[in-house]
């Protein structure tokens, strides 16, 4: 993270919500970092993300590809490579109860380039289905051109019940 990392948006969940969207109101940069921690949820499903454009309008077309290595302490590692999805599942099944929170970092690249795809790398650390620590490490691509201004998080089903999402942009590098 050379240069300065400047916060552009943050959202701390104080009551159950279906989704969280954070975006840059003045999108002038190409590289963003999303940091999230202590995320809890209401049901045992996956947390997904979509990129946004403009004032937080999500791209929900089936244009997301992903490849990730899934690490898990209690089971053998494997990989996942879903294509043409309408969002990116970057956690697998989480429980997110009390102390078993979801945490991670997503880097968004090419965000401000209107004639290029938007890419992201993600790394997470959480409990997999209540068993032990697990996390996806990999990346995703939105195979559509847009100025990406931010990101929307939501559960496959159920709600996000607590935790914080913060969007930073890298400037001066």
């Amino acid at each position, binding site marked *: *993270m050379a*240069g*300065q*990392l*400047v*916060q552009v948006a*943050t959202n701390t969940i104080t009551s159950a919500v279906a989704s969280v969207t954070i975006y840059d109101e003045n999108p002038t940069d190409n590289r963003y970092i999303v*940091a999230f*921690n*202590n995320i809890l949820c209401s049901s045992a499903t996956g947390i997904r993300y979509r990129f946004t454009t403009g004032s937080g309008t999500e791209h929900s077309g089936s244009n997301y590809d992903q490849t990730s*290595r899934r*690490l*898990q*302490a*209690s089971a*053998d*590692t494997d990989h996942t490579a879903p294509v043409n999805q309408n969002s990116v599942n970057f956690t697998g099944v989480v429980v997110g109860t*009390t*102390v*078993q*929170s979801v*945490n*991670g*970092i997503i880097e968004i690249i090419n965000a401000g380039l209107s004639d290029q795809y938007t890419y992201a790398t993600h*790394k*997470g*650390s*959480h*409990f997999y289905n209540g068993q*032990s*620590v*697990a*996390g996806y*490490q990999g990346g995703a691509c939105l195979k559509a051109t847009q100025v990406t201004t931010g990101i929307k998080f939501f559960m496959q089903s159920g709600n996000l019940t607590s935790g*914080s999402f*913060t969007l*930073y942009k890298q400037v001066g590098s």
Partner: protein
Amino acid sequence: MSNLRLISDTTTGTGVEQININDVFSADFDIYQIEVTDFVRGGSADAWFYLRYINSSGSVITSSIYAYAFWQMRSDGTFGQFRSTSNTNSQYTITTSPEAGAMTMYIFNPFLSSSYTFMANEHSCWDDAPHVLMNGKQINVLPQTSSITGFQLYSSQAGRSVDNARIKVYGLGVN
């Protein structure tokens, strides 16, 4: 002002087998980025350094409660995993080499008494025998809710060490 706030910047001496970074986690931040660079081996043999956490009493946590998973990718085409749900440390965090390996590690919620402490790291270094590039991805959890204030990197093999490694700890500030 950058939201990436430097908390500590430590350079070890030579022949160091154990690095304790104390009093860097606090209520000021929930997410920490740790950069480890110049991880040059001391002596003539490489050594894996493992991670353990330090609690608010200054004690290194050595009980068999660490859970981790590590995915290793070597340039000789060997890929493999190492994992445990009940270990006395988080193994395979970074290894020394003549070429100075490096690592970026994120630690989540160490000081929060409402959450376990989670970690995700990526490192790039060189293996000893055979001498090949080795990249690793690792996660771990310390399933305790007590406040963690620091961490330790220590050599897994007595007599093997690191020279002049640099460890920077940053907090990700939220306004």
